[in-house]
């Protein structure tokens, strides 16, 4: 999947100006960049119902799962009821439930801590059977061990031949061989494996 010669303006200013992005199929891909640089905007463009010709190889919107960064939604259901709702949907993956989720099953969604809340939301997004999974800053606001576990889940998803795109402004949880699109500025995107990106980020 790739985005070629892409430009996007917000309030008359370019967020992206004739840039290219490249994503490996069936792998965990990263969009790396400072806060406010346009990572969420890029994901929003990927999930647009009518994409323009610059977006190549992306699946139909119905085959994309997208976990937005802001998810302050609270509801008086238990975690079990929420997961059962996902199981009722027409295409669900047969994933083994992590113990971290199992122990929360009977808790009310309203009573979860911030970390638990995010873990459950990420997990329910993994459960639905889609071709492409987008996660907007999944590691933001959760502690390091939680975020490490979550990125482990993403890698398991990639092993099931699913493509995952994750935006992040942090460098932890990225492996040297991972495909990274580093947004340096509005006109320059460096797309390569993380080892090479690290070498070029210094300059």
């Amino acid at each position, binding site marked *: 999947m790739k985005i070629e010669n892409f430009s996007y303006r917000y309030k008359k200013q370019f967020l992206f100006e004739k840039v290219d992005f490249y994503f490996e199929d069936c792998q965990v891909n990263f969009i790396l960049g400072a806060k406010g640089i346009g990572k969420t905007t890029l994901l*929003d463009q990927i*999930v647009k119902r009518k994409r323009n010709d610059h977006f190549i190889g992306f699946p139909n*919107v*119905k085959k*994309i*799962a*997208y*976990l*937005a*960064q*802001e*998810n*302050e*939604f*609270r*509801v*008086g*259901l238990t975690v079990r*009821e*929420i997961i059962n*709702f*996902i199981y*009722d*949907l*027409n295409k669900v993956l047969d994933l083994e439930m992590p113990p971290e989720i199992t122990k929360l099953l009977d808790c009310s969604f309203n009573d979860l801590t911030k970390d638990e809340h995010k873990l459950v*939301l990420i997990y*329910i*997004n993994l459960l*639905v059977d889609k071709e492409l999974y*987008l996660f907007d800053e999944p590691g933001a606001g959760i502690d390091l061990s939680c975020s490490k576990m979550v990125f482990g889940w993403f890698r398991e998803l990639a092993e099931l031949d699913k493509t995952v795109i994750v935006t992040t402004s942090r460098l932890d949880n990225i492996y040297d061989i991972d495909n990274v699109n580093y947004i340096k500025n509005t006109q320059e995107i460096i797309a390569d494996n993380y080892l090479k990106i690290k070498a070029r980020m210094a300059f």
Partner: protein
Amino acid sequence: MFENDWAILKVQIRIALKERFYFIYTLIVPIFMVFINKNQDLQDNESLYIYWSYIVVTTVFNGFLINLIRLREGGFFKTLTYLMGSRHSIVLANLLVQFFVIQLEIFLFNLVVTIFITHVSAITFLYGFLVSFLAALLCSAMMSGLLLLRMKQVYFNLLISCFFILGIGLLGIRPHGILNYVLTMINPFQLIYGLYVVHCTSGFYIIFISLCVVGYLIMGGLIFRNISVKNRLK
């Protein structure tokens, strides 16, 4: 084929039944008011319609509309849309749940009135049941305009509070003449009341109400069709 729609409908019903707090002001308050006013204004069905109108508008607002706004402003509407594959299924499920809740509330309200205050005929029960479908749909369509507002959350809350207090206050004065037409057009309480009393009114008012119904249904259809998953309140 409809597994996703059925799944979201089930979960929305579960959420509606768990969030019982709003039943206090959508059902308990009108029951309380009808007991207070039972000696003066319950001589005819038209008096009942004021309470039905209150139940419909407050339930649509506190259930359907606030639910959607909370989902969207919390960012979950976006996530849920891509989980489900359609944002319209979420809106539709919300609407169907409101139909169910409104029918239940109006039935319970009529039951309380008929047991403790004055006899409500079977025809009135049936009339309430049938017209409330259109009333709920019309009210949702009319108030869908609120989904387009882009302002600070605090101003939104203030606007809604004023809108409600004024709406209920103006309904209570039972306006006549041109004021009645104006208020019917802009006040959801008055519009829904107008819909319930339409069979007891003049030919011109029936045409006017019909135009309002068609206009608001078209407006609501367009707004819900193009509903944005992005948050608008700051």
